[in-house]
């Protein structure tokens, strides 16, 4: 526990001074502030932000995360040469990356809402969006960590991270749409519900949209999800799946980290 705390606070101290993360927070701040500036109300701003959050948060968590892990390799070797076991060291390293990433997003995107009165009617949606962005930061920084500790070639690792991003944000919906068109004669509901749970970006979209009156924007899988489980039930299942998703990349990369050679 002590080791985890020490490594996490070092990670926070390091990354809170990172120009990249400061820029990331400022970018979200400017964006949310700009959306208010152009006359948006709370719920509208949340809706506009949602699509950007779903694209940008996974991208930054994956690419920045992978680069960060590669850059910290030599220091991690030095830490591993100290009298500490690998598991708590790994947990500290991951949290020391995920917390600053999530924090930069939450502070950057959240402050404008504080200035503009908590988002008014859209407060529930805003809170959900904030949680979704934080959870996505954890999930995708976990995936980045897994990639970087499994791939020794940095260029390949960063390429893989970009590939995961493309797959989760763009290709996945396209593939589902194509599958629906191709197999439209068969009952697809069940496989599609399964497919939905496999993509945290889709889950996050569903959870946030369920707080807004905008089911038309939900996309094909989202609409199906709600049809099967009801709006509230769908959001609850999606939220639970999203939280479970946080653990998957963490457990996978912790295993990898515990077994690999440095």
């Amino acid at each position, binding site marked *: 526990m*002590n*080791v985890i705390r*020490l*490594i996490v606070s*070092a*990670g926070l*101290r*390091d*990354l*809170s*001074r*990172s120009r990249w993360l400061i820029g990331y927070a400022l970018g979200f701040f400017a964006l949310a502030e700009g959306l208010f500036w152009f006359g948006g109300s709370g719920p509208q701003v949340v809706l506009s932000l949602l699509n950007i959050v779903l694209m940008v948060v996974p991208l930054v968590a994956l690419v920045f995360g992978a680069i960060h892990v590669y*850059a*910290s*390799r*030599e*220091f991690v*070797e*030095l*830490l*591993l*040469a*100290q*009298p*500490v*076991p*690998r598991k708590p060291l790994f947990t500290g390293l991951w949290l020391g990356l995920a917390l600053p990433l999530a924090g930069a997003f939450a502070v950057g995107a959240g402050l404008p809402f504080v200035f503009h009165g908590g988002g008014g009617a859209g407060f529930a949606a805003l809170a959900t969006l904030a949680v979704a962005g934080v959870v996505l930061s954890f999930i995708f920084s976990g995936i980045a960590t897994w990639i970087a500790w499994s791939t020794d070639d940095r260029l390949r690792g960063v390429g893989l991270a970009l590939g995961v991003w493309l797959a989760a944000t763009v290709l996945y919906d396209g593939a589902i749409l194509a599958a629906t068109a191709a197999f439209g004669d068969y009952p697809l509901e069940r496989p599609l519900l399964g497919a939905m749970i496999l993509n945290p970006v889709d889950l996050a979209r569903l959870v946030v949209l369920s707080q807004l009156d905008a089911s038309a924007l939900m996309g094909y899988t989202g609409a199906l999800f709600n049809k099967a489980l009801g709006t509230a039930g769908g959001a609850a299942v999606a939220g639970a799946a999203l939280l479970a998703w946080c653990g998957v990349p963490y457990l996978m990369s912790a295993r990898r980290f515990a*077994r690999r*050679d*440095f």
Partner: protein
Amino acid sequence: MIRVEGLRKRYGTHDALRGVTLEFRTGAVTALVGPNASGKTTLIKSLLGLVRPDAGTVFVKDAPVDEAGRYRRAIGYMPQLARFPENLTVADVIALVASVRAGEGAESPRDDELIEAFHLVREMDRLVRTLSGGTRQKVSAAIAFLFSPEILILDEPTAGLDPLAAAILKDKIRSVRASGRTVLITSHVSAELEGLADDVAFLCDGEIGFTGTFDSLLHQVGEHRFEGAIASLFRSKGRVA
């Protein structure tokens, strides 16, 4: 102090270590030499638990090493490449390593000698990203010696250091040896091992080619200087008559 028995490690189709059995004498400086890709770094990393050997055992202070790594309390390690988190200060880095080590039990006496000799006190508040490569290397050396470990493992310690700093470091290694501690050092520059190494272990293609004292090496290959002796080891792939 450190003994390895039948150490084997294979990466894919490449045998990095093929059954290395070796002992590092307590209170001596052992030079681990060998051509590139001979398995030196793999051997060092096996001692530290960074690499898991496929077969064989590492004994540190007569006990086989374990997963939890408490045995590493006795070891100070200076890696080949010194890199620290870019946005931490030198003081942050040193405090982090110190608290990670202290967290696992009793505190060891601090040895600030290198921090003073390298004039690192005035660099303490600088961010790592603003440091030159040489200064990072000095920080790395200072950390290895900071906790007065009984065993020092130094991987290419003088690479990137200016001659003055290298001389300071070599003096420090000698004084550590004089206090009865064990030093393991790898270097490509054989001239700098002269007058420093008591023992030599020559590794080639993952096997021990020669192991013994420095004097016995000179005698066996019929050379007067370390550099020539090492060169002849390289030529004969370590197979000394």
